[in-house]
């Protein structure tokens, strides 16, 4: 009996509620208009373009404030430190061995040089440089095949750079913000009539 009663009551309430909805609708006609929609739209656009990039990227700085400018002023070329090995593979960032040709001991007055000598050269630990052009494991890139291009056609021109730029890392994907995306590789390959077959770049 009790159940029946409450069911009936619920039923009644439901009916009332529908009535209210109808009422509300009538009251609301014209009120507010499109304004809330516009506010929501604009807020979302601002959040998406301004806040989102800040949220998705973490900022990191290089372990040593390495100045490409200073080295370039010494008359060094990119290829003085970024070399090819005998098998045609690319050595990429120089190791301690290379750096210590000059910096086995402190030779200048820059505190970061002293930091390098103390923390890395002396201990034999390699510097955990952050690679702006980071590519994941599934990519195989041959610098040898791209040797005819200038470094700066893909990399930022570092020769004038005194303080390494901030490293932005995508929190979700783990990629550097400057990681070249696949469409960029593909576009250049297409423009130059080079194969875009999967295995040309993937492993």
């Amino acid at each position, binding site marked *: 009996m009790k159940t029946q009663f409450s*069911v*009936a009551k*619920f*039923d009644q309430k*439901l*009916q009332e509620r*529908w009535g209210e909805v*109808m009422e509300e*609708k009538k009251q609301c006609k014209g009120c507010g208009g499109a304004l809330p929609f516009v506010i929501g739209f604009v807020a979302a656009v601002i959040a998406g373009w301004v806040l989102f990039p800040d949220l998705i990227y973490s900022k990191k700085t290089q372990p040593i404030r390495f100045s490409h400018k200073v080295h370039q002023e010494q008359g060094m070329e990119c290829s003085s430190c970024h070399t090819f090995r005998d098998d045609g593979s690319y050595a990429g960032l120089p190791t301690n061995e290379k750096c210590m040709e000059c910096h086995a001991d402190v030779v200048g007055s820059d505190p970061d040089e002293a930091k390098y000598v103390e923390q890395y050269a002396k201990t034999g630990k390699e510097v955990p440089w952050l690679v702006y052009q980071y590519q994941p494991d599934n990519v195989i890139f041959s610098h040898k095949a791209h040797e005819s291009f200038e470094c700066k056609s893909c990399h930022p021109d570092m020769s004038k750079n005194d303080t390494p730029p901030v490293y932005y890392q995508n929190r979700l994907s783990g990629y550097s913000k400057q990681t070249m995306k696949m469409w960029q590789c593909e576009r250049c390959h297409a423009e130059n009539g080079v194969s875009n077959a999967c295995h040309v770049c993937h492993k």
Partner: protein
Amino acid sequence: MDRALFPEGVERCSFGKFALWMGFITAFFLFGLFAMLLIFYKGIVVTGLDNYFGFGLWITFDLAVIALGAGAFFTGFLKYILRIKQLENIINLTVIVGFICYSGAMLVLTMDIGQPIRAWFGYWHPNVHSMLTEVIFCITCYCLVLIIEYVPLILEQKQLNKIPFLHHLAHNMHVNMALFAGIGAFLSTFHQGSLGGMYGVLIGRPYAFREGFFIWPWTFFLFVLSAVGCGPIFTVLVCTFMEKLTGRKLVDFKTKALMGKIAGTMLTVYIFFKILDTWAWANNYLPSVGMTFDQMFYGVIYGKWLMFTEIILCGLVPAIMLITPSIRNNPTMLYTAGILDCIGVTLNRYLFTVQAIAIPVLPFDSWQTYAPNWAEWATSGMIVAYGFLVMSLSYRYLPVFPQERMLNK
């Protein structure tokens, strides 16, 4: 207590009874949901699939429900394009069945792929040569069409329909339904065919491979025909099942018999070509690649009885039953034929999916067997439960059956 929400002028069971029923179904649904979450968490290693059987119950299930859901597009086509008025008595039901089948299939597909996070690659990086791409696009589009067809039905719910905007929206959608039905018929024909094409193009799988017309192997056309040969009658079976369950008459038998006639006609056309195709396959194609008919079968699990059941018992027999008016007009016989028909088409999908890849094509390889495990059954069961839930809600609250009031006076 939810009486206010019922369609105009019909009776429904008490809310308590309904809740009990829904709870019962929800239990199955939740069990399947658990399996689904486990699959997303651990990967499909929890299923019975393996290196030999990359496709199994799920793909069979998908193909079967898409074929059975074909009632929606074909009936829509007949009703809105060919303007067979009588079909309006059952058209709503075909739409709901279609919607359940397609949305369920899409959910199963998401589970079935190894990297669901990248499911959208199918749209972003499509391979235009792949039949599966065609399937992905057509199923998605057609699922949208089904939603568009389903929405006005929801909007016609007694209370919602009181809102003028929704009322008008529903009305306008109805007016243009012929357009959607046309689009739906086009899309659906293509992906039903593409599903067949998916197997027909497998040059490495002699059981499935077929020559064809232009880019479409014969299986493309056979799958379209078999789908329209079973979809309408499946809707009839669903309707009859609902009638038995609710104890109310929903659609008059005349309409059902008409659906049976439509299905029967298509099934007859299908089975004629299917037999021709099988004959040509066994006598021309197989010998041309150095294989024999006997090599395609193994033991009981993959025995010849499956093919004979599919083509004769569940193909030829229901086709004859459905095109013979005297048999068709007997309700028991109609339903029997319908059940056989649906089993036949499901079996066909199973054989093309599982048997085709069970056959050791390498002469030194051996037969492997496959049995779905609990996780596959549970998730497939979840989709069935989902279908029951949607159908129950639709039946209770939406004006699905225009004849219901009249028939239950």
